[in-house]
């Protein structure tokens, strides 16, 4: 992935595949060059594409707002690499990509600091200016805004495995032969790569030795073989509620909150007390950063939208957009926090959020991800 140049990608576009893949918004690209005042295209994780978030902005601005949601970061970034830089105005991905990949590759452009710095003062303490993931590596540029975040390790049914046992045993639950056939795996392969490394007792966010890869492969084969099912978030929650499984790997507030809000508080995202991550941390947490795409004809609405979602009410709507419920950095603002009901706070595990974030390393890029993913995919095929 690192060898991709914009030129080669644009040449690739000649094939027409990119145009077809982006059928929707791309067909408006030429028109867009003429006038973008009333048009905004957002590439995001699910939630920002919901009508609850977009409709008020549409009626306020009278603009045509299109949002496409995808469920993994590399796909979204490659859409920009493949030439769709002219199509999108905003991109919303997990924390490291803006700073480490998209800015160096000139896929995104910095935000006007003076306009956006004041918003950080109203965020939760850990997001205070200058917030690492919102800034360029040298700290000179503001490259995106933080909003949703959450710990993301694994989920258990606390009726079967208590929170205490789960936190204390941690990732070794997946090494326990007695639990084979009783757990699921969320189909979220980038996170599964992290977690297989962690289950093998290895820090995922570093360059790995051949011995570590051997251990990774062995762990991947065993963990995937022992899984009752692999599926999406809905399948995991359904299997937990019905009793088909007792726990599932890769999961947390983002995945389990809809089930908790639906009357299943016994299902809970768990962050282990300890693990092989730097500082002995046991889990991984994500923070979404929304950046303006380096679109030569960027819609002026892109900045307006970024400001719009900072407002207390809209931030609360973003937190509880359809599909997934999450804490937002803007909860540091009392006006925003007060909008959350007790049930909503319970759904996002507010009671343990701080300690879980403290026990989590921040999502990062695995330097040898491609090799690990190939090994994991091969391990998956051996399930049958």
């Amino acid at each position, binding site marked *: 992935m690192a060898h991709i140049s914009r030129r080669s990608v644009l040449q690739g576009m000649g094939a027409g595949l990119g145009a077809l893949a982006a059928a929707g918004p791309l067909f408006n690209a030429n028109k867009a060059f003429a006038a973008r005042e009333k048009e905004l295209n957002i590439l995001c994780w699910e939630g920002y594409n919901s009508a609850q978030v977009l409709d008020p902005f549409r009626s306020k601005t009278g603009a045509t707002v299109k949002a496409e949601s995808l469920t993994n970061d590399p796909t979204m970034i490659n859409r920009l690499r493949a030439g769709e830089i002219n199509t999108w105005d905003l991109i919303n991905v997990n924390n490291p990509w803006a700073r480490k990949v998209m800015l160096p590759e000139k896929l995104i452009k910095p935000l006007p600091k003076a306009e956006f710095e004041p918003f950080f003062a109203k965020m939760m303490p850990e997001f205070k200016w200058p917030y690492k993931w919102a800034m360029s590596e040298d700290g000179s540029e503001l490259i995106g805004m933080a909003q949703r975040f959450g710990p993301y390790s694994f989920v258990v049914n606390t009726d079967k495995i208590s929170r205490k046992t789960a936190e204390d045993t941690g990732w070794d639950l997946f090494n326990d032969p007695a639990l084979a056939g009783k757990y699921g795996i969320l189909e979220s392969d980038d996170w599964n790569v992290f977690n297989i490394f962690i289950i093998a007792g290895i820090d995922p966010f570093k360059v790995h030795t051949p011995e570590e890869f051997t251990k990774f492969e062995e762990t991947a084969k065993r963990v995937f073989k022992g899984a009752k099912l692999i599926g999406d978030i809905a399948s995991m929650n359904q299997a937990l509620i019905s009793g088909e499984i007792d726990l599932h790997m890769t999961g947390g507030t983002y995945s389990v909150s809809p089930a908790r809000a639906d009357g299943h508080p016994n299902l809970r995202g768990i962050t282990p007390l300890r693990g092989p991550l730097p500082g002995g941390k046991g889990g991984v947490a994500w923070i979404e950063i929304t950046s303006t795409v380096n679109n030569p004809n960027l819609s002026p609405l892109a900045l307006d939208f970024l400001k719009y979602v900072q407002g207390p009410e809209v931030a609360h709507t973003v937190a509880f957009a359809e599909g997934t419920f999450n804490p937002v950095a803007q909860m540091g603002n009392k006006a925003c926090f007060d909008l959350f009901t007790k049930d909503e706070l319970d759904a996002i595990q507010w009671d343990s959020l701080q300690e879980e974030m403290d026990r989590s390393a921040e999502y990062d890029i695995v330097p040898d991800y491609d090799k690990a993913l190939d090994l994991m995919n091969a391990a998956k*095929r051996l399930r049958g």
Partner: protein
Amino acid sequence: MADLAIAPARDAAPEGAAQLRHARMLSVGARCALPVALLLGIGFLAPLVAIFGYAFATPRSFDVFTSFTLANFATLFDTTNTVWLSFFWSCGLALLTVAILAVVAYPIAYGLNLVFGRWSALISVFFVFPLFVSENVRLYGWVLFFIKNGVLDGTLKWLGLSGGPEVLYTPGITLFGMVYTYLPFMLFPMTLGLALVPRDLVDAARDLGAGRLFIWREIELPLAMPGILIGMLLTFVLAIGATAEAKILGGQSIIVISHDIEIAFTYSQNWPLGSALAVLVTFFIGALTLFALSKLDLDRMLGRR
């Protein structure tokens, strides 16, 4: 129409330049077909050409048409690569689906033609109706039916029994899902095939003393064969590309080939490898289809030659 358009050119040798130009122009039919040809060219051919181009591009790059390598195919044919397992499952499940559907759909097709009478239309609608609902929704419906404490298990427990069988998240339930999904695609060509069998022939054979089995084997089956084979071919081609059943019902207990292609295009971001795999599968299905069609002389089967 084509004949009409070029008629003047045939009747007399073109004299002036205008006439010559006219003679060289596309026929009316060809011109009418241009929009469709263009649409097919863009919508059908262009993606195929792009996929073909990507299959020969540098792995994990977007250097389509600017690089040429066989590395992607080498990776797929590498003996340590387990992708053949996915291929094996897809082919095996597709073949089993076809075999099961041939047996299941035949009596229904027979009934629609000869037994159900005026109810045939209504029964046909029952088989078509599920197609109006998204396949994923229907498959999730089956999950709710089979899941622990779901419709089946819950009902059986309510009746005081020990509960339903644990069938979800297995290759077996994947096969069930495929049989369920592709039933109409086997049933309707088969029904048409059976409708082609002249009843007079069956009556004549019976009058001449042929038994039921003999009539079925010597008259009904051969004459209905075009429909049956087209149904089989259609079902096989669709089933080999099936993903949703293995994902939703099967809980990815097996990885099918189309899922492997999807992984290459998404999480792996290795479009060239995904394309090479797609090209291989396309060629395999294409070769199989052409082989089947070459063995299948529809005209002869229909008795037109």
